[in-house]
């Protein structure tokens, strides 16, 4: 045992599997999930009754749902609104945010509306939308857009504003045209923040997609939720929610992956600054 207290150089340690596991976040997530699932199972068995299914029942119902045509039809219909609505949010929101970030005067006009979009409880708009646009795909698309566009606009605006002014001056000194300043300096510089806005926007878009179906038009996934609730089919109700959560998580992970890939430089810079 004296070896442990020996002075002088020590042999390099082999990479320790346990230590590497402790460094990753997945084991912790698995651990909390196991505790959560066990707690759920115990509670539902003891005091659950008709309305709260057990964890195992929920898993079984989820698997059952994944095999049913009804769910996939609902997914298809719901995601139409998500894809269109979020697509519009990105296509409109990114340029809008960039322009607002570059031209301060415009921002004075737009600021109040952005704040309204940020703080308004969106559910309150739904009756207005129904009255003016109707119950079709259009109002679901609009609601998804309204839900998600704020995140995209605000983050794109911040991104443009964060671009170091000395980079713009540098580009001008090398004869860059206004267009080159946009394409070679402002847009690449704002990209990390734009990607963050897209990731945050995806989460809000999924929320919007479900809320509009719950409150306004009971179709698709929202319709399924309402139907299973009405029929007291608690496991299927929970299973539907699990599937929606899974989709949201998947979309956000994809967005985060894209963010990391496209903006590796920004992460090395922040890591350096944090040190």
């Amino acid at each position: 045992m004296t070896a442990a207290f020996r002075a002088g150089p020590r042999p390099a340690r082999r990479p320790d599997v346990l230590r590497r596991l402790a460094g990753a976040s997945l084991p912790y997530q698995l651990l909390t999930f196991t505790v959560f699932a066990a707690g759920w199972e115990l509670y539902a068995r003891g005091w659950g009754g008709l309305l709260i299914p057990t964890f195992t029942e929920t898993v079984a119902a989820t698997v059952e749902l994944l095999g049913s045509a009804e769910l996939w039809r609902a997914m298809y219909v719901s995601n139409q609104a998500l894809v269109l609505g979020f697509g519009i949010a990105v296509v409109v929101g990114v340029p809008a945010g960039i322009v607002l970030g570059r031209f301060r005067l415009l921002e004075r006009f737009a600021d109040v509306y952005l704040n309204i979009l940020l703080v308004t409880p969106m559910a309150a708009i739904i009756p207005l939308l129904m009255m003016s646009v109707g119950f079709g795909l259009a109002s679901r698309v609009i609601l998804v857009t309204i839900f998600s566009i704020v995140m995209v606009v605000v983050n794109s605006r911040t991104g443009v504003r964060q671009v170091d002014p000395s980079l713009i001056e540098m580009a001008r000194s090398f004869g860059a045209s206004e267009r080159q300043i946009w394409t070679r300096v402002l847009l690449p510089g704002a990209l990390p923040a734009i990607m963050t806005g897209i990731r945050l926007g995806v989460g809000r878009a999924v929320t919007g997609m479900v809320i509009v179906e719950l409150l306004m038009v009971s179709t698709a996934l929202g319709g399924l939720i309402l139907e299973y609730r009405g029929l007291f089919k608690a496991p299927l109700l929970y299973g539907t929610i699990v599937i929606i959560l899974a989709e949201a998580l998947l979309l956000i992970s994809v967005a985060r992956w894209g963010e990391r890939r496209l903006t590796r430089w920004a992460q090395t810079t922040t890591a350096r600054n944090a040190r």
Partner: protein
Amino acid sequence: MGSDDYGKERALIEIRGLGKSFVGQDNETVEALRDVNLDVGENEFLTVLGPSGCGKTTLLKTIAGLIPWNDGDIRIDGTPVRGPGPDRSMVFQNFALLPWATVLDNVAFGLRMRGVGRAEREERARSLIAMVGLSGFETKRPGELSGGMQQRVGLARALAMRPRVLLMDEPFGAVDEQTRRLLQEELLSIWEEHRMTVVFITHSMEEAVLLGDRVVLMSARPGRISEIVPVPLERPRSSDVGALERSGQYVEITAYLWDRLRDMHEEHRPSKVAG
């Protein structure tokens, strides 16, 4: 002292009656430059020295064509300055590198803005990268480089344009002392080999004397040229900087500059009675 005692070579940069003022934060007019007259010879190395707020950076940016001025006239080889041009390129105090671009793309940036084709600009960029001693770092990004290496990239980017005038705005002010000395020696040896006109802003007396053919001393509020001090030290200087710094002439000029700078600081100390 006049500004035309540099009669050895003809003037490439002619500045006549230059005045520049802007509105400051409290709505007061700040006179950044007043009646600046200066001739810079072809292939001369001119250093500009002065206390902070003396307008030396403003002077450099007007020559670069980056900011407009109120009175007077700047000509490069007889042509009035109307904006940035390919005959001048600039090295920035904070490096102003694009953090998302590789060393190669950063060095080639100016060439790209000027419409040089990909093959040619990369070839030129690579040879400049070799000249500043960064071969092997072509694919690294600025975040992975030390401050000294980043400024080598900034220098290579400027030299890649093959400018007639190199404008340097306290380029070594943001790096540590040892790196600064290495960069100074390298700049000297590059300049001795590829002669060009250099206007070099600094707040270091030693740097001004070590590098310059003449030192322009500026005073603050309003920013104007107070004196132009010739530096008759022998060239090439890069071979033995240490011996140069121990020479009587070097010590004498540096001491003289410090005397003058101290007078300027005292003038602006309200409590001190003159004489």
